[in-house]
Every structure is written in structure tokens, then in C-alpha cells.
């Protein structure tokens, strides 16, 4: 298995990648004021505490925005979404939205986190929730 990602890892992002390896999405969260922080940072932007924990969010999110991303010659483009996690306003995870028509991406749609293997690494993705689930 050839591991392509991540290209670079540092003290702040290692727990994120390690979590994915173990099959979980873990994000930084301040132990002092409970602010969620993503992308990973060593210090809480709200209270400046260095006391950073790593926790898994619920996986529930809303599609805030997206782009249609080319994937290479001969391959169809995919939708990359900005999933705003239910945990906190503007807490975004950027990840592919599975099984969605690129011409009809519903901003505001409810999303559910799923982890998918891609190029030998487990990465976040989101699926649209069915009406009755949301």
C-alpha cells in the first residue's frame, strides 16, 4: 500500500492524521473554553489556552458551500464541500460530497460524515442525508 497523503505533517496536524488512520475524524478542541478548532492549531483562538484536546465531532453537518473540482484527464469532476459541523458555526471540514449531481448541489443540505479510503489513506467525506433522517 503506497501512502500518498499527507504530504507534510507537523505537531499540530499529527493527531488529525493519526485519528484518520484509526478510522475516526478527530478535531482540536480547547479544554478550557470548549471551542472547536479546525484546521488544527496549537493554541485556542478564543481564549489563547495551549490546552488543546482532540475529540470526534458528531458527524452531523450542513453544506455551507462547495466547488466542482476537476480530478484529472478522463475522470469526472467531483463535488468538494465545505461542511459546517453542527458543533459550532463556521467550523468547516472540507471534503468530498459523495453521490451528488454536480449540477444540482443543494447548499444548506444536511450531511453525515463518512470516512472513505482514498489512495491508501482514510479521509473524511460527507453523504447527503435522506429527508427523513434530517
Amino acid at each position, binding site marked *: 500500500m503506497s501512502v*500518498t*497523503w499527507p*504530504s*507534510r505533517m507537523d505537531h499540530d496536524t499529527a493527531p488529525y492524521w493519526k485519528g484518520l488512520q484509526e478510522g475516526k475524524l478527530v478535531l482540536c478542541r480547547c479544554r478550557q473554553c470548549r471551542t472547536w478548532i479546525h*484546521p488544527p492549531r496549537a493554541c485556542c483562538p478564543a481564549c489563547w489556552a495551549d490546552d488543546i484536546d482532540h475529540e470526534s465531532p458528531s458527524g452531523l453537518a450542513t453544506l455551507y*458551500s462547495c*466547488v466542482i473540482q476537476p480530478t484529472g484527464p478522463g475522470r469526472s469532476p467531483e463535488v*468538494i464541500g465545505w461542511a459546517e459541523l453542527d458543533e459550532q458555526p463556521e467550523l468547516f471540514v*472540507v471534503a468530498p460530497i459523495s453521490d451528488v449531481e454536480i449540477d444540482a448541489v443543494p447548499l444548506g443540505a444536511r450531511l453525515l460524515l463518512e470516512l472513505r479510503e*482514498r489512495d491508501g489513506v482514510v479521509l473524511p467525506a460527507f453523504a447527503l442525508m435522506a429527508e427523513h433522517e434530517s
Partner: protein
Amino acid sequence: MSDANKVAIVGIGASTLSRDGGRSVGALALDAVRAAIRDAGLKREQIDGVSGIYSTDQPTVWPGYVVEALGLDNIVWSSCSSPPSANTVAEGILAVAAGACDYAVCYHSKFRWDTVSGAARNDPLRKAPKGAFDPALNMPLVEPFGVPNGMFAAVRRHAHEFGTKRDHLGMIVVNNRTWALQNDAAIFHDTPLSMTEYLAAKEIAPPLSALDMDMPIDGAMAVVITTVERARDLPHRPVVVEASSNGIAGGTDFFFRAFDSYAAYRVLMKRLWDKSGLSIEDMDLVNIYDGFSSLALEWIEAVFDVRGEAGGFLEDSWDPEAGKLTFLGRIPMSTHGGNLGEGRVQGFGHVLEAVRQLRGSAGRRQLDRAEMALVVNGNNPVNAGMILRAG
């Protein structure tokens, strides 16, 4: 406040702007810098400050290159800043205002690296250096997904929240392309664009088409800055800096949170108005950054204080016959054609055009009244804005 303590732009210069000028990125910078120093009526010995745009992801050269290549042997102040171009102009303004140097030359040079197009890829003279640009350290998190551009997500969000349509972006694009027809130096000086053609263009990053993205070129520009007092001995009518500012706010990460540009622009604009005591009503020209048309859209909201209403505001300002925008019944936008029409020197053209209009040397596109101009460049968190006045 009298002009005594103010600084002014006293020289402007540009290289040719083209798809392939047959000159290196370094040579283009030297063309622009020499032209600006000559235009200011200065000798090289008098130049004692130099600032340029330099960044590892940008095909440009740092100040040392320019200093050595042009034999500027009297430099006591220098600086590198990130794009956009107004940033390096702002640096020069601050340096002269602070007395760190007397005559600053500020430049930026752009070049089509092999990363910008298929044609450039096949040109062995255009290889980009190895090395990633990742100033917020987040790129690995989105690399598996092809590094999607947060600015494209931002315009989608804007459309979703505020009902912005492609027609609105089209008014910005067509305005700039129409003005470019009156600018012989513009890359699109002979290529008109109608709204019908704009709307027919393929959306490569919906809702943006290639026409919404600035045109990569080989080209460099420069200015010379000194105090208003020294400017009196120089050949041109000085263009006085009334205020200059940056603005950073909220989410600044291009990948994760590129949704707060408007907030940053408001910070910048508030500072410009507060420091200058002026308002938008005092402006005769607004040169608004258009790296993407969607960036111009949110700048317009911030400049005219019409958040979420850019669509209607543009409709009210749009003349479909002329293919141009006129804000508040009299203020044109980007009379040189902007990045979209003149070419991509990342906003430097916006500065030079303001100087030309305020000097009264804009030729066949000269405005009847051009006493005061607003220039804004960039996005969040790299930007600069300035108010310039005919001295």
C-alpha cells in the same frame, strides 16, 4: 492637514504586457523599474528605497536582484511583501512617510509559469521552481482533494445567500473588458466582450468562467514615491496619498474559510475613510481588484456599503448599451480594464491607472473630472487600499 507631511507617487513605469514578451521575469521587472525612475525625472543615485512583491509561489524577483542589476548603490531601505501589488506600493508610502528613505521605487513583475496553462507547460523557459506555498500550513488537509479553491466556494455561498447571478458578475467583467478597448497596452485592447458572449462562456468553476479570472501575462509595473515637498521639484503633477490601509478579519485561510473577505474589506475601507475624512462621494474613480470577478463583487459591497445588495446595485449602475458601469450616477470603475481586461499584474494596473487619470494623462479614456481615486487590491488576508488625490 496640509500636504507638507504627505507623500506622493511621482513616477510610473511598465514593461510591455503580453502573453509572451520574450523576456524573463527579471528583465520585465527591470523594464518597469527603469521606466518609473525615468518618469519621475530621477537619477539612479537618488533612489534609496526599494520594495517588491516576492513570494515563493510568485514568479517575481526580490529587491536584491533589482538593486544589483540596475546598480542602485544607495539603498537604505528595502522590503518584500506578498501580492497584491498595492501592498508594495503601500510599503513604499509608509517608508517615505516615516523618513526611512527619500525616494522609494516599488515594483511587481508577473510571468506565466508552466503552471498557468498548457502552452506555458510546453515552454522549457517557464518552469516554476519546486516548493510549496502554504502560508497557513493547511494545504496537506486539502491536497487529497486537489486543493479546492475557497474563493470559488465563497462566490457560491454569496450566490446562495444573496441571490447573486452570473449577470451581475458579467457586468463587472464586461465593464472591465469594455474599458480595456480604450487602453492600447491592454492584453484585450482589441477583443470586445458582450454580455451575451459572457453568459455563453462555460462555467469552469461555477458560477465562474475563464472570463471571470484575470488574464495571465508577462508584465511588470512600478512606481516611485517621495514626499510632496520633494515632488514639487519633479516633472509631473504629484499624486498625493490621502490614506493607505490593509484589512484582515475573520477566516483568512484560502482553503478552509475564505468566506470573510467582505469583513476584511470593511476594516480596510473604514480605516481609509476615517483617516482621510473623505467618503465615497468624494471619489471620481474606483479601481477595484478583479483577480476574480467575484472578488470585485464583494469589494463593491464594501466600498459602497451595500452588503448583500451588490446584484441590485450593479443593475442600477449598468448601462447595457455602453457595456459599462457607472456608480452613484458618475463614478466609473477600472478605466484601464482591470486585471480582467488589461492583464494580470495583480492590481498594479489599478494603481498606475489612478495616477494617470489624476495626472490627466489617460489619453482617450481620460475622465472629465479626476481629482480623487480609490484603489483597492487583493482579498483576505492579503490586500491594500489607498485614496489618491491630484496634487
